[in-house]
């Protein structure tokens, strides 16, 4: 009779002990904390830079959170976070109240399925495809098949860059599929031989290198690769920025300088982005 009660109590106390011990351990010596929030695209890179920064600076803790570019901008402005990650160039009205530091470049390339024998598309062919004027690959010299247009969701920086370059309004675009992130775009195009979409060039290059069934198309005659983005000849690219409020703390400034230094170029390339010169 008593054996059963003791069993139940030991189980419950074990659980509480586990939780308590965890919260105790948190309060170790004065730990300098840095919080970075913002774009999911920049987050993996920022996370790697933060880990290297932590290994080189004793008891510094850098937490990287996601939530999107507008979250990063808003938190940095309001001081909720020390640094905000924004995966696009800032608009005019956003510039005055934050300091902006570019840490990498990211090209945006047009991708189609590997089996699609289209070699290149002119800018106005792409505009016609995306606005629904051209509906079949035959019209641009490919096999007779309906085109599946893959577009990004409203507000995404790649969409804004794409619309700005091709001078389009999102309302004009007639997409068959709307995606959120690069990998979703790549997998959609890889799974549908009649699809066309646009994603980060670095990610596309990495996927092609790993045998994913997609291929990059040149834009405006310039071949799409991290090299052409690096030397500035590729027209479609966006800066990946870290933003801080107007008076960043010394630790924040130290992290920003580290993030812009040559020491992290290998990390930038590892995340398929283009390091700044």
């Amino acid at each position, binding site marked *: 009779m008593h054996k059963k009660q003791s069993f139940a109590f030991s189980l419950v106390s074990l659980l509480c002990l586990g939780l308590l011990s965890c919260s105790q351990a948190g309060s170790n010596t004065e730990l300098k904390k840095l919080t970075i929030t913002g774009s999911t695209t920049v987050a993996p890179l920022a996370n790697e830079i933060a880990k290297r920064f932590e290994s080189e600076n004793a008891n510094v803790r850098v937490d990287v959170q996601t939530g999107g570019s507008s979250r990063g901008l808003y938190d940095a402005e309001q001081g909720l976070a020390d640094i905000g990650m924004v995966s696009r160039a800032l608009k005019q009205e956003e510039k005055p109240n934050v300091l902006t530091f570019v840490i990498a470049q990211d090209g945006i390339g047009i991708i189609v399925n590997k089996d699609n024998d289209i070699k290149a598309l002119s800018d106005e062919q792409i505009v016609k495809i995306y606005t629904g004027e051209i509906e079949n690959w035959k019209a641009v010299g490919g096999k007779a098949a309906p085109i*599946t247009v893959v577009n990004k969701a409203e507000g995404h920086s790649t969409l804004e860059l794409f619309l700005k370059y091709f001078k389009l309004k999102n309302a004009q675009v007639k997409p068959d599929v709307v995606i959120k992130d690069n990998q979703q775009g790549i997998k959609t195009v890889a799974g549908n031989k009649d699809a066309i979409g646009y994603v980060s060039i670095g990610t596309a290059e990495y996927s092609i290198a790993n045998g994913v069934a997609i291929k990059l198309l040149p834009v405006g005659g310039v071949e799409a690769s991290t090299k052409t983005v690096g030397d500035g000849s590729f027209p479609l690219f966006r800066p990946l920025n870290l933003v801080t409020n107007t008076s960043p703390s010394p630790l924040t400034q130290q992290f920003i300088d580290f993030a812009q230094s040559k020491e992290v170029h290998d990390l930038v390339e590892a995340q398929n982005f283009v390091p700044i010169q």
Partner: protein
Amino acid sequence: MTLWKLKISSLFNRLQSQADLLLISILRILATITGAIVLFIVFFLILEAIPVLQDEGIVPFFTDSSWNPAEGLYNLTPMLLGTLFVTLGSVLIATPLGILSAVFCQYYAPAKIAYFYRRLIELLAGIPSVVYGFWGLVVLVPLINSINPPGTSLLAGIIILTIMILPTIALIADASFAKIPEEYLIGAASLGLSQWGTIVGVVFPAAKSGLFTGVILETGRAIGETMAVLMVCGNVVQIPRSIFDPMRALTANIALEMAYALGNHRSALFVSGLGLMGMIIILVVASEIINEQ
């Protein structure tokens, strides 16, 4: 008859009724907290949705030409209908499948198979929606695409959601069948009712409340699903004409654009959240009325 001395103090009895009083007051507090959570959520949604509602009012959410928040167009109806179609589609398929699988577990399967089948269903309930979405995107969508491009469609959404909500109805139905007293079944069997006759005639009516709970919870899960729907439905803002048309659910809409939304666009997303809550409340009230009859 032997008598023995039994010293039971009335003080001790008094303590016991004190314990009951304490228990009930604690339970009432817990229930109030639980009941209040949904009110907090609705209040939070309204708070965030106010900016755009003040500027635009509620009408444009149904009359605007399209959904392009950057250009101030906020028509939600295609997404409301999208969520409705994908939820009803999946519930209509998952409910019979779930109940039949529960019938299988309780009345047809030998004990060993039933045991492993239940563990399998429990596992299905635990697989993250992102894995379902991932599998859907890589396996299901190209399959549907071969039938009718573009592949990402209402049908893909319905199939994925059916697989995701099936464990909920199956497990709850199974538990409610298990509770039916033996006498009911032996009584029906003694009347020479066939196995199927017993199940339809005796088991289903007896387990009605359990099945009802299962349907409500699975519908809740279907409406609330975000990731999987975002990955397989194509997210095109249109009222789907056929099951092969891509469409966007309200939940996917919030997830897609929340990361980059600012100002009115952001509170418009919260309005779509309110739209979702409105749908859920209507469904719950409707089910309440049906349950009354």
